[in-house]
């Protein structure tokens, strides 16, 4: 029994689904979790979460930005700041966000916290696009 919970403060992406494999964007590199993994608490970066439901060969994807992951004997709890399942991603919006962030970042007079903000936005938008392109073929 290896259960995945993927929740944000605003919504639940999946709760209590049985999975066979979970791939997470750890802050210090990607990690794959299989049943029987040692208990772990780690921070997550921005990127793609993939999980394979029990008895299926295909991965389901979602995008998360910043969060925590807790692995215990029962399964994986992912607490993400924001999360979108694959069919919630709006490609046009993500591309527009990339363009806007890139444009803003070329401005030399940008304040430090603004730079950080747009870098985060850029990263999030890129993660969305990447998730879409990886799963479409």
């Amino acid at each position, binding site marked *: 029994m290896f259960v995945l919970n993927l929740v944000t403060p605003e919504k639940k992406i999946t709760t209590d689904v049985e999975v066979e494999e979970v791939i997470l964007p750890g802050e*210090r590199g990607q990690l794959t979790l299989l049943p029987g993994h040692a*208990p772990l608490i*780690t921070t997550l970066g921005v990127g793609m979460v993939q999980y394979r439901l029990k008895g299926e060969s295909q991965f389901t994807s979602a995008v998360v930005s910043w969060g925590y992951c807790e692995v215990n004997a029962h399964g994986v709890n992912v607490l993400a700041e924001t999360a979108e399942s694959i069919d919630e991603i709006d490609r046009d919006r993500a591309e527009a966000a990339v363009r806007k962030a890139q444009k803003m970042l070329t401005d030399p007079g940008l304040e430090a916290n603004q730079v950080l903000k747009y870098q985060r936005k850029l990263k999030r938008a890129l993660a969305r696009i990447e998730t879409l392109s990886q799963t479409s073929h």
Partner: protein
Amino acid sequence: MANLKDLRLRIASVRNTQQITKAMKMVSAAKLRRAQNSIVNLRPYARKLLEVIADIAVSRRVSHPLLSSVTNPKKVLVVVLTSDRGLCGGFNANINRFAYRFYQENKGKYETLDLLFIGRKGVDFFKARKVTGIDAIYNLAREVSYGLAAKVADRLMESFVDGGYDAVHIIYNEFKSAIAQEIVCEQLLPVDLKKSSFDPASETKNPFSQDLIFEPAPEEMIDELLQRHFAVQVYRCMSESVAAEHGARMTAMENATKNAAEMIRNLTLTYNKLRQASITTELIEITSGAEALKG
């Protein structure tokens, strides 16, 4: 006594008002459902987060300034959470009165007792009483999102750190049901872990908490976790308050609609009486005129 034309106009205007209150009631009912959903959706996240914090703080004995409560708080900040808009019955009046009394009673207890307002109604109320808060946040978006709450939480945290407060309390309307709200005063900071269902005795028996892998180290993580936890708490309070506001507005508008119906009934009755009276008078005038001609 009013004449017929006045009454007709009066009835029409009451009917218009009734339509507005009815529409507002329906809008509030729809919004209430959404607000309730967001509270329900938040619960698993909030619970898990607190579990992880408790896990780190207790099993790893990690201490953090946001976790250590001061036994004799000297500087206290009270956040008063009201709504931006009115027409919701006693929702804002109740909370303002409660906060005002709380302020009067506890002013002497602490060295400093500062207020911070969220929502325009609280700002206005205290301004009229010449009580100024250290900060006021209002004109918030109509829908409470986590992003918005996180911004508010950042501002609160900034005031907490810059102002050197020992404790932060929040007064808000807790959502009980669609017709009931309860005013509660809660401690936001320092974070109180006692409230969680976490039981250190059973946790230490559990072999898994002993050899948890932390990446990065728990000391580095707890700071961020507590910040998140704080944001989530603010979000929860705001969601509760919004749900309570819609519930209160729904009830208030329901009553208003009922009162308008009652008023229309009374006015129509008066109108009909008056109409009949005038017909009778006219008939008497005609018949007596005819009688007079005969004679």
